[in-house]
């Protein structure tokens, strides 16, 4: 399976399909953060939220890179459709890491975080903000990918709809925030300095949502 992950990562990098969306959002973040001298937790919370839909788009683009017939060849070569699906998700997740790394580094480069805030704790909080949303972005990207939606239109609709729904239902007043990934809860918790218990609750909710969404994706793929 590692060999298929590697093959797909090489294919994605060479196709250069994944460059535009992350490059665009990193430029946007650089413009927003430049010279802002904000608190690390707030800055990272905001960049994790802005990056969330971009990572979902990137996951979709990643999973759409390979021609449909190649998925079948890979599944037969691996001897298991489940392993083929797993390799796709792992590779798409791995492709998110450099973008998240760049997003963590960017505020320090453009003066977006005040100098006194540079500490292992602030970097850890930033990493948490990005990582806790990544599985949900992966799940949305997977559901929007061509193997599920068959055409570009429904995929784009699903991506947009999911993010807008998250922006609506993850508001403070929402009675059902657990129906969507904690896209707003993450920056809110960091802005309000919610403490370890608050962050743990968000982590549990995010992982539970992602587990259900990715589990359903596995189930769908295994029935095809």
């Amino acid at each position: 399976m590692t060999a298929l992950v590697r093959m797909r990562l090489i294919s994605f990098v060479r196709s250069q399909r994944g460059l535009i969306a992350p490059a665009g959002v990193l430029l946007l973040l650089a413009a927003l953060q430049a010279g802002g001298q904000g608190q690390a937790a707030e800055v990272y919370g905001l960049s994790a939220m802005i990056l969330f839909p971009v990572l979902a788009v990137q996951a979709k683009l990643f999973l759409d890179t390979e021609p449909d017939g190649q998925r079948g060849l890979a599944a037969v070569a691996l001897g298991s459709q489940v392993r083929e699906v797993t390799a796709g998700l792992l590779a798409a997740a791995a492709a998110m890491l450099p973008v998240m790394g760049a997003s963590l580094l960017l505020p320090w480069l453009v003066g977006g975080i005040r100098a006194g805030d540079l500490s292992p704790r602030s970097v850890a909080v930033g990493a948490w903000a990005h990582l806790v949303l990544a599985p949900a972005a992966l799940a949305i990207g997977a559901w929007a990918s061509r193997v599920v939606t068959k055409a570009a239109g429904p995929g784009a609709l699903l991506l947009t709809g999911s993010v807008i729904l998250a922006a609506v239902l993850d508001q403070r007043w929402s009675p059902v925030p657990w129906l969507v990934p904690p896209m707003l809860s993450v920056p809110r918790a960091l802005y309000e300095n919610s403490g370890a218990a608050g962050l743990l609750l968000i982590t549990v909710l995010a992982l539970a949502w992602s587990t259900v969404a990715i589990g359903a994706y596995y189930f769908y793929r295994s029935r095809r």
Partner: protein
Amino acid sequence: MQFDDVWLRYSPGEPWVLGGVTATFGPGEVIVVCGRNGEGKSTMLQAAAGLLRPARGRITDRPAVIGWVPDQLPAGQPFTVGEYLTHMGRVRGLRSVPVVAWAERLHLTQFLGVRLTALSKGTARKVCLVQGLLAPPDLLILDEPWDGLDTQAREEIPAIIAEVAERGGTVLVSDHRGEAVRLPGARGLLIEGGGARFFALPGAGGRSVVEVTVAEERLPETMALLRAAGHHDIQVRAR
């Protein structure tokens, strides 16, 4: 491998493509899957490869190592032929991938450094064939393998099939060009109306229909020769 009352369609509400197929394919057997366009030959092969899941019935005893050779290579990938085949061998868990040996056999050596997107149809078919043979398959599935190949490569297909069968592998091959006469000992499997039935291929005592074109002035002489040789003419028409 056993197909046990296999029913398959692409979406609920659509017509069944396979409707109750029951068949057994043993080790060392070569099965030629025949049928008109749209009758479900490729569907049957994809089900055998494990790429399509029956809605009803089941497929059991599928061999562990399957060589799947679809009717076209998914060529839209940023790899050269050599890179692609090496990656596919690694995906199969091979430490040493026999790319060069297969490339030499199928006259692909000069294309190892060529990008997949730049290949002709025939060369892409050869690459597709090789990726299915990198690990010796227990079940080799070939969808119209002769399509687009040059004469040299077409001659290699029966030899490759024979080698797999001699090793105890099962071979399923679809054919609508009548090339299956090159496969001695093969059984025919006709997919028709959603069902499947075995039949004897021409090499095993059946008869084939061959279309030929003849210069008009030589028609009477040619027909006389064919009849004298014991052939039965069905129809003569002008082109």
